[in-house]
């Protein structure tokens, strides 16, 4: 074989010309690599920026009581958003999260107050309601292959109607309830701050679900099913079983959300939080989870919920009129996700 000229420059070891473009070479790009690997870091940065800015705008914002208030304000939507994340990871969407939570909370409250059942039994009944609702959604999605959007739109109406029929539109006040039901609304001191039990419950849920999603086979299957359902099926994953279990898990989370909601408002009310659906989806999407499934994390969702909570609270502390608050929330949502995108420098 004869010696040939190469078309390129003489080869002098690997990656010489490319050297300067290699990300590991600069500190900035090292950061970007970290962000690629831990996508929740970038909404965390957005949150941090928001906290700092609002702290500068109003010195009350950074007081521990105010920060604790924010966590309380997001505790319900934050919990619902866990369930929503699970569903969205499977490329679904759940419009019924708010309705399931309310139905469950009304059942718990009425059974305890009107029917005099012991509090733990009432809570158990609430859990069963959540699971049953999840089972219904999951059944319709897996069995009839209906789009989750349609299924949960339908069951949303069903659950709302059931709630109103069951409760007769009446609110059950916390003062009438056994302590266990409103326990999630109690606070306990940690150093200078009072932490709400409901917030702690929510955080524990996040830890548990993050563990399950990240560290167990089930979690991996959830991602695989959401990523490419057909590929998961061909890889031998029991897609329908996974989907069903996701809806059941979501139902259970919603039942816990109902408990937190009772504590938070110190009441079980049939018209609480009908717009929690959109809010929970918002938290998920701001948290970086893809609506097309298979990509995202529950920590991102927590950050998403906190970002919205911080905006709302911070803007009103900054003394903005409510209409301008609405305007600003709109702008900030877009800004938050833009910054997030910019930080990640995602290429299409």
């Amino acid at each position, binding site marked *: 074989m004869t010696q040939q000229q190469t078309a390129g420059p003489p080869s002098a070891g690997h990656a010489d010309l490319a050297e300067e473009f290699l990300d590991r070479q600069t500190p900035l790009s090292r950061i970007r690599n970290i962000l690629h690997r831990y996508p929740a870091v970038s909404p965390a940065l957005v949150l941090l920026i928001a906290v700092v800015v609002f702290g500068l705008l109003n010195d*009350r914002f950074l007081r521990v009581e*105010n920060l604790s*208030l924010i966590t*309380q*304000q997001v505790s319900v939507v934050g919990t619902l958003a866990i369930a929503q994340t699970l569903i969205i990871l499977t490329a679904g969407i759940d419009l019924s999260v708010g309705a399931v939570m309310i139905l469950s909370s009304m059942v718990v409250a009425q059974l305890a107050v009107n029917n005099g059942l012991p509090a733990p039994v009432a809570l158990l009944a609430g859990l069963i309601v959540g699971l049953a609702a999840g089972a219904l959604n999951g059944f319709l999605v897996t069995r009839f292959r209906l789009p989750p959007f349609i299924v949960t739109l339908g069951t949303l109406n069903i659950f709302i109607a059931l709630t*109103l029929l069951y409760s*007769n*539109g*009446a*609110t059950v*006040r916390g*003062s009438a309830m056994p302590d266990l039901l409103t326990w999630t609304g109690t606070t306990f001191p940690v150093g200078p701050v009072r932490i709400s039990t409901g917030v702690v419950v929510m955080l524990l849920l996040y830890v548990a679900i993050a563990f399950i999603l990240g560290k167990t086979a089930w979690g991996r299957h959830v991602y695989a099913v959401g990523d490419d359902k057909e590929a998961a099926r061909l890889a031998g994953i029991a897609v329908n079983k996974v989907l069903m279990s996701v809806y059941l898990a979501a139902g259970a989370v919603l039942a816990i959300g109902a408990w937190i909601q009772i504590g938070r*408002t*110190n*009441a079980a*009310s*049939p*018209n*609480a*939080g*009908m717009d929690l659906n959109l809010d929970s989806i918002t938290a998920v999407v701001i948290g970086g989870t893809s609506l097309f499934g298979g990509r995202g994390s529950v920590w991102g969702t927590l950050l998403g919920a906190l970002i919205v909570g911080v905006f709302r*609270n911070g803007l*009103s*502390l900054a*003394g903005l009129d*409510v*209409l301008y608050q609405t305007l600003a929330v709109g702008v900030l949502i877009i800004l938050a996700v833009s910054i997030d995108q910019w930080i990640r420098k995602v290429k299409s």
Partner: protein
Amino acid sequence: GGSSTTPGASEGTSDEKVGVSLIVKTTTNPFFVSMQDGAKKAAEAENVDLKLAAGKADGDEDTQIQAIENAISKGDKGILITPNGPSVVDALKKARDAGLFVIALDTPPDPADAVDITFATDNFAAGELIGKWTAAQLDGKKATIALVDLFDDKIVSVDYNRDQGFLTGLGIDTADKKKNGDEAKTGKYTGGKGGEYEIVGNQASQGAEDGGRTAMETLLSSNPDINVVYTINEPAAAGAFEALKSAGKDKDVLVVSVDGGCTGVNNVKSGVIGATAQQYPVKMAELGVKAIVELAKTGNKPANSEGLDFFNTGVELVTDKPADGLKSITTTEATDICWGK
């Protein structure tokens, strides 16, 4: 449904049921649930075929409009409605053009003659009662006032009547009586012993618990020294109270409201609410059903109360801390006549 041909025509024989639709604001407020229950009872007695409809939430005009149109299509003789906002007026006109009788309950429409008659609380008077009571309780102290209203995106008579009535009762000049929030933000109130006042702001609550809570939280964050809280109704009051409580402010604040439902009266008893103006939804419903039947049969209807463009169904101030020169009933008395047990 009946088999009558020309809707609203009064040729119906006595054994034929009169078709009536009751369209309330929302079914998640016990006030309207009581109104529905009252109407159902009255309907049975009057041989009325009553159908229930409602907005999806307080303020939902679109659903009410569709319900009105469907009532026309259904061949109903009459409509009872608690209008959710100004947009329903046009649909009501269509209904009346089609020969239906239309009666408003609880909330007089604007203009008042968009319906045959309205049975409602005198909401301005209701607001005045709690305003005067507040002035008396303040005893000359400075009033730092939070106004938890109904809407900020539409104008409804109950909303401005109660709010402006309350301020009037306190002795504050309200400028335009049909407009919330155009009064001076600081100045002197003249009610009771009189004193300084500061209005922290108006926040919309959609007349519901969660709205009330968010509204109160917003107001508290702009001024934690609030000591007077006016609320549009008792669901909003309950929500506002939760916000006060979690901010540790529930003890030193005067909360006043309108409604007088059993839950609300209970809250007055336990001190959650200082005073409430009690209204009578069951009476509104009964009068409404009867009036429709009467209109269908004879074309006659009751006259408006004197000086008002609606039929006043009455209001009582409920409190356990009566103020001098202000007529009120105790929570025990109020419990006997409260609704939504």
